[in-house]
């Protein structure tokens, strides 16, 4: 999909007629139908993928068919309305939060201009309040007295095929980043509303291919990239070869090793493509340096979980391998790599979803003796917490000047920042490994961080223009520090970020690279017995 020229797109964002530029809608939002055209929707999941998933134990993906959002008739199952209303009823009963979020919005508008999709598209239905209203209006109609009696006067409407289309459009123009909820006086988590809308759509066989492909890969091989055990192992070993080439130190990682103290799990993309590869090299160097007794797993070979972007059952099933493998190998605790949504799942759901993990111990760093009480229930610690603690206790020998070719800023990845409060640790680590560091403006970082614009499985190329629009607020903040301080590297702790920010930067800020923090750690570490060549571009140097 060709993307508009930068000048065109940026002008269209700031000058085009939209709610964000002051244009006033001429119709009530309920009267504006959605129009699908190439470029404004992600491709629907292929029939055979949906069928495959539906045939797998523990998963429920009914009503597989060939369809296109551009079709007038979406071939909904005959009893589609019943499915939706029953599905909503079930979820209102199951998730008390959903009922609260449906009831308590006062339409104050605090969230309206906090959404990167709204800022990039100006589409009123991308205001979080209105996105939630797409579902809330149906909730009112079928589940509240006021809605039943007063109908549209009370903001209620019946669910129709047009509503289903609208749900599809706007639940896939939300990355569940939760920036809006950080500003909501009631703390309404609009991400959970999007999650529920997507779940309901899956009941009708409506989903997108870029999400269901990794889900089926992960169900089949354990990881999103579909890497089989020997391939996964070969990839990690290739990285070890590269490290030997660069530093002269041979690292021999182990796989599926019973009795290791720690099981390490990271997104499979880290052992698959740039720039994640360099992050993974960073892990390998760090673990070698401190002599960690750990193992990789070719079964629990994925930290990420695209199940989160489909429905509860698939999230639960895909995540179960973490504890299952930890138990099988008899490790004491789990260390997790740099990933965004993985940490939402691990930190907020894993314990009750797949636990209790009473066969594991509360994570304790074998190097410093620090006990990570914050992970007392999940038994899983984030690599940034683990590394920050190592620096705190002076256990890592670094030469910061090795990163002097970079001028770094830090992108708080949405989920680690807002879903687990990981704000200080990555910065603490960065402070110990780079000399040149500058923060982006304060309303674009920490809890208020702007999304990469392509999370929750929206990083597919048929919607590239949408992605460049929704990533603009983030890119704009990067541009600010690039121009003011000469920043040339955007660091982050998320695999989706590493992939999508790279595209985003190549569009908006082509002189800025993207890296994981562990890459910078690995590059700064002085290994025992190293024979390091002059590495102008750190671990990326081609020798």
């Amino acid at each position, binding site marked *: 999909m060709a*993307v508009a020229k930068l000048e065109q797109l940026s002008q269209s964002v700031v000058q085009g007629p939209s709610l964000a530029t002051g244009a006033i809608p001429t119709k009530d939002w309920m009267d504006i139908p959605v129009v699908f055209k190439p470029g404004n929707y992600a491709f629907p999941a292929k029939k055979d993928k949906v069928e495959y998933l539906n045939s797998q134990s523990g998963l429920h993906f009914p009503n597989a068919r060939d369809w296109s959002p551009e079709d007038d008739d979406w071939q909904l199952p005959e009893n589609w309305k019943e499915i939706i209303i029953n599905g909503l009823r079930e979820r209102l009963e199951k998730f008390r939060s959903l009922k609260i979020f449906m009831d308590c919005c006062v339409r104050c508008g605090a969230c309206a201009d906090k959404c990167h999709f709204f800022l990039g598209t100006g589409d009123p239905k991308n205001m979080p309040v209105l996105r939630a209203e797409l579902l809330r209006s149906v909730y009112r109609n079928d589940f509240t007295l006021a809605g039943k009696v007063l109908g549209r006067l009370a903001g209620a409407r019946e669910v129709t095929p047009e509503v289903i289309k609208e749900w599809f459009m706007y639940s896939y123009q939300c990355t569940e980043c939760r920036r809006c909820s950080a500003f909501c006086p009631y703390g309404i988590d609009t991400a959970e509303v999007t999650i529920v809308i997507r779940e309901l759509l899956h009941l009708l066989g409506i989903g997108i291919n*870029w999400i269901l*492909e*990794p889900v*089926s*890969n992960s169900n089949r091989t354990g990881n*999103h*990239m*579909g*890497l*089989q055990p*020997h*391939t996964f192992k*070969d*990839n990690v070993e*290739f990285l070890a070869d*590269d490290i030997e080439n660069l530093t002269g130190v041979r690292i021999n990682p182990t796989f599926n090793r019973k009795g290791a103290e720690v099981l390490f799990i990271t*997104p499979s*993309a880290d052992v*698959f*493509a*740039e720039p*994640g*590869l360099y992050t993974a090299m960073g892990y390998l160097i760090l673990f070698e340096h401190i002599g960690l007794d750990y193992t990789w797993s070719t079964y629990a070979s994925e930290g*990420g979980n*695209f199940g989160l972007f489909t429905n509860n059952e698939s999230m639960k099933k895909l995540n179960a391998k973490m504890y299952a493998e930890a138990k099988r190998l008899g490790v004491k605790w789990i260390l997790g790599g740099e*990933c965004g*949504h993985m940490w939402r799942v691990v930190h907020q759901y894993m314990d009750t979803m797949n636990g209790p993990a009473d066969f594991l111990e509360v994570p304790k760093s074998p190097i410093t003796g620090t006990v990570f009480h914050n992970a007392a229930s999940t038994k899983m610690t984030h690599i940034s917490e683990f590394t920050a603690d190592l620096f705190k206790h002076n256990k890592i020998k670094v030469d910061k000047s090795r990163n002097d070719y970079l001028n770094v800023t830090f992108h708080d990845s949405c989920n680690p920042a807002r879903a687990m409060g990981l704000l200080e640790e990555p910065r603490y680590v960065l402070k110990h490994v780079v000399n040149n560091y500058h923060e982006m403006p304060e309303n674009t970082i920490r809890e208020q961080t702007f999304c990469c614009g392509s999370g929750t*499985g929206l*990083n*597919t*190329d048929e919607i*590239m223009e949408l992605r*460049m629009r929704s990533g603009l607020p983030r890119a704009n903040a990067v541009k600010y520090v690039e121009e003011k301080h000469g920043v040339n590297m955007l660091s982050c702790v998320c*695999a*989706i970020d590493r*992939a*999508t920010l*790279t*595209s985003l930067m*190549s*569009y908006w800020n082509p002189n800025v690279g993207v890296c994981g923090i562990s890459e910078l750690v690995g590059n700064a570490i002085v290994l025992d017995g190293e024979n390091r060549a002059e590495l102008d571009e750190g671990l990326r140097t*081609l020798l």
Partner: protein
Amino acid sequence: MKELSVNDKIVTVDDEGFLVNRDDWDEDVARAIAKHLDIPDLDEEQVEIISFMRSYYNKFHAFPILRNVCKQVKQTGACVNNEFVDPMKAWKIAGLPKLDGIHFVTVDGVNYLLEECC
């Protein structure tokens, strides 16, 4: 679908240029697919890359790490991009199937990045 005529046989590629029947592949078919993808002919470096991709796929059933490809065929680190611009073209010319979750994106038509799903 598009039919390509190669010597005395006809092979089919899909709309994106992936060879439909992997057994149809030989080096002449590769050249025909290349032509279909606007690469007039294949030079020695390009042939080395696609041969490696084929043997890699047979062993690992996955897309290779691109740096690894270059290392194995003893070319420079960005060899696949340099030789084919879009590395997926090399994969198609090698007659290998489309893989889930793998795509290359470009915003300028010149630099192609492997943007894995996650």
